[in-house]
């Protein structure tokens, strides 16, 4: 059965899950857990990211009946995750103000992102040169393959804003492109210079 489910489209899995199949919903969780975690970990610490991922799937499950099939399930899921992340951020800020609590430097999302991006130089440049929201837009566009309209929905921005953000991001990142050598990019450090 699980092997069979892997071949299902998101739409079919959603339809089956709506009809009560928990196995189909589990397959959706399996499919998007890592991607959602990576998207969320950009803004919150590991512990919160796990919570947000779980919350996002629970919210998605509870609201499956309200899911509009004219959108992609992935887009809907990212919208939920984005809102939960913002919510978590707000609460974190309030808690931090009350308790004067600071995260250990190793657990800070920026620190972790830097560690992750050591092997991903272009993303490292993106992190340094683009704002958080533009970075997210670029991530959703190039990694999650979301259209500008879908990104606008996830980030709660206008379609024009997303278009402009992606254009500016491309202009900033293009000078940092690594040259192609025999169809492969050179390893970082070999012919890689960032300013």
């Amino acid at each position, binding site marked *: 059965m699980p092997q069979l489910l892997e071949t299902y489209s998101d739409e079919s899995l959603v339809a089956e899950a709506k009809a009560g199949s*928990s196995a189909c*919903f*589990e397959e959706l*969780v*399996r499919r998007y*857990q*890592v*991607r959602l*975690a*990576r998207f969320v*970990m950009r803004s919150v610490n590991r512990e919160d990211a*796990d919570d947000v*991922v*779980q919350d996002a*799937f*629970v919210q998605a*499950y*509870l609201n499956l009946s309200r899911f509009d099939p004219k959108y992609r399930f992935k887009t809907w899921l990212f919208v939920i995750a984005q809102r939960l992340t913002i919510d978590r951020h707000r609460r974190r800020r309030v808690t931090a103000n009350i308790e004067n609590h600071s995260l250990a430097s190793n657990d800070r999302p920026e620190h972790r992102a830097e560690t*992750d*991006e050591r*092997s*991903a*130089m*272009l*993303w490292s440049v*993106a992190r340094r040169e683009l704002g958080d929201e533009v970075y997210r837009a*670029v*991530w959703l566009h*190039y*990694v999650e393959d979301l259209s500008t309209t879908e990104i606008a929905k996830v980030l709660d921005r206008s379609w024009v804003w997303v278009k402009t953000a992606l254009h500016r991001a*491309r202009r900033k*990142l*293009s000078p940092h*492109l*690594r040259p*192609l050598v025999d169809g492969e*990019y050179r390893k970082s450090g070999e012919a890689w210079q960032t300013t």
Partner: protein
Amino acid sequence: MANDLKTQLQREAETMLPAFDESLHERTMARVNRARRENLSASVRAPSRLNPLLAWIARGAVAVLLLGVGIGIWMGSGQMQQDRIDASTAAEFNEAIASLGQTAKPLRYTLNVPMQSAQRQIGLLKEDAATFGMFVTDQVRNLSVPIDTSKLPS
């Protein structure tokens, strides 16, 4: 150039994706299943969940009903206001009662007594008159509010 950028970003992103976390998956599914059970028990408690259209129709019907009740109360109160006896009728009634010399049940009508109530009391007065054999006086006979005096001893 755009394609190069896309390819490089995608290749680098692959190295950034965390490994599949089996424990997170299990915890997520445990929470989903718990939510499903809670949802199921909630739906057992409230089996008839109206669809949105029916819910709006029901809300509309309740609103119309409340509006109707409100209008009814308002009109009824207006009607009652109209049906109260005026000062001259009250005086007339009181004079008629006094003329009967009834002391057992002293009735006094005041301004704004509802007409219906006054008529009921006049009816009681007639019954009392018949019971106690009181005589009908001119004041009673000539009341502007018509009463049946045929059963009263003249």
